[in-house]
């Protein structure tokens, strides 16, 4: 009995570790969601696709035997640039057309990348060769792999970087101003179009980084890989409080851990249902998210 209990404790710790690794990836994708939503109130359904694009670019760069410290920035910059192109070509013209057209456009962009990707790269998944030897560190009965450590480390670093960027730089201030009131920001001489593009760039490059990380973690990438994590990351963003940077990270981690606990202690069958149930509960009871403050509609 007590032996079993100790095992259970170890197992739960292990699930937490696995959950934090998974959750870090959600968190990175959620950051982009949250920033884009914060600034133009658009659920960017195509956001998961930038994660997919990042993963493929990462795959290509790794196959060129580039070192990881070059793979990450390059993959991030390229997926960011693709996002900016998409934003300029389709989101910008539709910005004032209302919510539903914008959402549909985002869906269209998402479908375009998924199916275009299948045609261009092929529908089957590609394997991601790790450029280093994966080591496992064992503490008691809990193990952590070097890839898991890299995932958590990179996420933590990028989150800190983002936080610094938003809070302590001029462009960050401009982003906050634009998100708070775009017209006013425009009047204050901020080039809001540029800021919005920059936000897309930033969000997509984080998603791109997450794509590379997930490729390294699971050894597999495919053109449809962005769909489910995209949705999950959105849940994470809402869970933490949409528009709030630490909220997205918290939401991602909570969701990752919750999913792994469901799989570990219950069945995988209801893992996605639990994720959606968490979403619905948070929407019903604290729609502003874990870290958000309630806001009412101004009358």
């Amino acid at each position: 009995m007590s032996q079993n209990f100790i095992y259970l404790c170890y197992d739960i710790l292990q699930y937490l570790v696995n959950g934090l690794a998974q959750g870090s990836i959600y968190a990175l994708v959620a950051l982009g969601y949250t920033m884009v939503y914060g600034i133009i109130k658009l659920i960017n359904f195509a956001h998961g696709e930038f994660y997919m694009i990042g993963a493929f670019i990462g795959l290509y760069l790794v196959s060129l035997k580039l070192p990881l410290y070059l793979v990450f920035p390059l993959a991030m910059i390229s997926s960011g640039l693709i996002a900016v192109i998409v934003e300029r070509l389709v989101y910008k013209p539709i910005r004032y057309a209302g919510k539903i057209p914008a959402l549909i456009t985002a869906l269209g962009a998402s479908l375009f990348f998924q199916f275009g990707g299948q045609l261009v790269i092929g529908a089957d998944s590609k394997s991601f060769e790790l450029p280093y030897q994966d080591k496992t560190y064992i503490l008691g009965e809990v193990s952590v792999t070097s890839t898991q450590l890299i995932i958590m480390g990179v996420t933590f670093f990028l989150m800190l970087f983002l936080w610094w960027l938003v809070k302590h730089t001029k462009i960050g201030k401009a982003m906050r101003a634009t998100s708070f009131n775009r017209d006013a920001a425009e009047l204050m001489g901020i080039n809001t179009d540029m800021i919005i593009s920059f936000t897309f760039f930033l969000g997509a490059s984080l998603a791109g980084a997450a794509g590379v990380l997930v490729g390294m973690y699971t050894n597999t990438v495919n053109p449809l890989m962005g769909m489910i994590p995209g949705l999950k990351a959105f849940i994470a963003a809402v869970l933490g409080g949409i528009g709030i940077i630490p909220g997205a990270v918290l939401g991602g981690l909570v969701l990752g851990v919750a999913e792994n606990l469901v799989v570990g202690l219950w069945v995988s069958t209801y893992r996605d249902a639990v994720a959606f149930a968490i979403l619905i509960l948070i929407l019903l009871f604290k729609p502003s998210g874990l870290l958000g403050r309630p806001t009412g509609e101004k009358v």
Partner: protein
Amino acid sequence: MSGFFDYLIPLLSNVGIFIILALGLNLINGICGQFSLGHAGFWAVGAYAAGAYGLYFAPEIPNFINLFISCLVGMITSALFGLAIGIPCLRLRGDYLAIATLGFGEIIRIVIMNTDKLGGPRGMTNIPHWTNIFWVYAWVILFIFIIVNFLKGPHGRAMISVREDEIASESMGINTFKYKTMAVVIGAAMAGVAGALFAHGQQFLHPNNFTFMWSVIILLMIILGGLGSVTGAILGAIILTILPELLRFMGTTIAEWRMVIYSLLLIALMLWRPSGILGKREINLLGLFKKGKT
């Protein structure tokens, strides 16, 4: 030529089924302004409820009576789900409601996937073949009649006022929550009937027929036609059901690229005509939408 009709008639039946789905979603999204992305969930509930009736409960009576009962079963089950989902979710607005309904739609699918009695991942097979094109269009006409009259009456006006401005509507004595729930329940009930007709037409149901993608496609139908326009919803349903089939005839390259073409068409439509083909207008056939003498 007979072969051609064997192909065309089931296709037209499907068109009818999607018209019903689009009309229902149009009531929720277009007329009442509540952004739902979970319509495939209601469709699934209706289809599976009707399928279960056909498989387990149907007595030996003429097919058309059985079909009618089955449609009622699908309708009522779906409406109850609409009520159960609507009451908690309709407190949410806009994007949040969309995501919550999306979540519910997926949960419904996951639950069906894991219910052995409903076939689980095998799908529900051997559903009796009761649907024919006559009954599909009988329902289509009935629903068009109901919706058109509904819209011309006070309840329709109230529902539109909710879309236009929920707070103002509430302040004018409209119980907005009641009307939002009503829109979702009626929309769900219609999706339930569409599900029943679908189940008894296809004779086979699989949870993957009811993914989020299908909610999106139904949404596209009403947006293509013009959100809020009844004839627009019908037009959208016709186009988006026929178009993929037409692409089958246009050679393999186009067929391969058709989902990409689809997505580009979608974006192009939003860029050039974000309010759909008809906007909020109606095509006036038979003077159906003539405004009263005002």
